[in-house]
């Protein structure tokens, strides 16, 4: 029998996160994909999971999972794991995913592997590839604990593919223990973002410390507008308060994989590279010829970003008009 590979299904704004569908696709390729879906969800949620390869769904729509963070979900998943013992369980490297895995790995005394980019199963054990990050070394790791292997998967590691399976849904009980209701989700605040979103953008124009100030992001916006792209930023620009966190790309921000990525005034710190270096084409502009970003660029210009970008915008307009 194929190994059961479980996926913790996560919703954001009533839609499954892209990583959920990416992980399901991979799970169905490696073994028998099954999903755990906790909390309120839209009516077509189960069908969506089946469309991406889930053949079984463990399901509770109880609101306790929405109203209280981590503890109820971890309690439920721990119980399911002990009962069914899947070979592997995949979680997205998201806020929720990391919290639940942290709890489960301590509770089940089994450990976990973070930042997984790919994995294979070999005789019941798992070999996970962790793409190079801070230290720019890539490694493969395994878990020597018995039982289910917990993996936190980086976004965009796999291509989501529709692969519809007949699905069975098993309703499960939510825990009612009040001790699990210690972390109360009081309110969700949506911070409005202007312009195209980074997720799914084909072209991204990012600015870093070299932009020198909030006002200069307008210049990047102009370039984004002529290319039909979205504007992103490094942690340095976000920490300086020039742009909101939602625009942050890199280790502690978003992971993006556009067709075209512009790095403007970005030196190429490993933390930033880890969030964008799998972009199809990278173009960079930096005044420092030694900046690491040039080693990752398909086309680099050593120069003043405040001269090169406006000239580029004019040039694109001219050529488009022609």
């Amino acid at each position, binding site marked *: 029998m194929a190994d059961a590979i479980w996926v913790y299904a996560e919703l954001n704004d009533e839609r499954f996160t892209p990583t959920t569908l990416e992980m399901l696709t991979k799970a169905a390729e490696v073994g028998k994909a099954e999903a755990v879906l906790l909390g309120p969800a839209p009516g077509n949620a189960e069908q969506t999971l089946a469309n991406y390869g889930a053949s079984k769904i463990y399901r509770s729509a109880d609101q306790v999972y929405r109203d209280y963070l981590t503890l109820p979900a971890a309690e439920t998943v721990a119980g399911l794991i002990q009962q069914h013992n899947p070979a592997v369980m995949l979680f997205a490297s998201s806020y929720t995913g*990391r919290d639940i895995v942290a709890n489960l790995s301590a509770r089940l005394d089994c450990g976990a592997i*973070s930042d997984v980019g790919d994995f294979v199963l070999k005789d019941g054990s798992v070999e996970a590839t962790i793409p190079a990050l801070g*230290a720019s070394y890539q490694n493969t*790791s395994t*878990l*020597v604990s018995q039982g289910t292997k917990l993996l936190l998967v980086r976004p965009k590691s796999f291509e989501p593919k529709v692969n519809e399976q007949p699905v069975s849904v098993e309703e499960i009980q939510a825990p009612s223990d009040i001790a699990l209701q210690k972390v109360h989700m009081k309110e969700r605040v949506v911070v409005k973002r202007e312009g195209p979103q980074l997720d799914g953008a084909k072209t991204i124009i990012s600015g870093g410390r070299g932009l020198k100030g909030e006002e200069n992001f307008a210049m990047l916006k102009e370039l984004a507008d002529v290319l039909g792209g979205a504007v992103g930023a490094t942690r340095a620009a976000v920490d300086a308060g020039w742009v909101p966190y939602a625009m942050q790309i890199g280790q502690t921000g978003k992971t993006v994989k556009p067709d075209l990525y512009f790095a403007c005034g970005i030196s190429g710190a490993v933390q930033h590279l880890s969030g964008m270096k799998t972009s199809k084409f990278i173009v960079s502009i930096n005044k420092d010829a030694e900046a690491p970003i040039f080693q990752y660029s398909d086309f680099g*210009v050593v120069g003043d970003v405040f001269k090169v970008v406006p000239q580029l915008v004019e040039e694109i307009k001219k050529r488009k008009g022609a």
Partner: protein
Amino acid sequence: MNVIVCGKVIPASSVTIEIDPNTKRMVRKGVTHELDPAAASAVEEGLRLTEKHGGTVVLITMGISDVTIGIRNALAMGATSAVHILDDAVAGSDTLGTAKLLAAAIKKQPFDLVICATESSDSYSGIVPGQIAHLLGVPPVTFAKEITIDGNNITIKRQSESGYDIVESTLPALVAVSSGINEPRYPQLKGIMAAKKKEIKVYTAADLGLATDQVGEKGAREKVLTIGRPPKRQAGKVITDEGEGGKQIADFLAEIKVI
């Protein structure tokens, strides 16, 4: 309020990290260390909270003797005292082994609030805070970008995909702070002088009641199989702007059929 900050001291950002091919671990001995900027933010948050509500801030860290410089830095910022888990037997600990050691060290003293960085700047696993919370039996309040304490209640703004969430819990709790929650203060001369007299307690795994097969490499659930430099992306063309840089980028964009 008794605040405990778990923070890491890591090779300085100027150090080129090397890997020991035998242990498959980062070479830490003999390289310049510094308090992880993420840990400095956690210390800063502890200091701000105790300046407002009274109390003490104890830094707990784990590492080789080279990390003392970072501990002194936290003490110079204003931390009251420090605990250093220093033991060859803990080398090679995975996330869970690390969490077990830190949780055991935390339990040695009374605490109301444990503050951790969301993740260290050198290994990024991001799950140690949640593991510690479970081992201590306190609620995990994570990804905090703002913390408010009112009596026994803690409210945070928690980073979310679409903005932030307002999340409430009660003390004792563990809070993991996200990067950029604050701008850590620089130690002043007075603080640096005072830090020299502050206490650093040193514990081994045995002092913390942990057998050497529960922690360190022997106790690790996660084993590194291989480690190496990834295939480098083929670097492309780099030109120097001599007045036509923007136009040359436009040529490149035309070449890849973007315009």
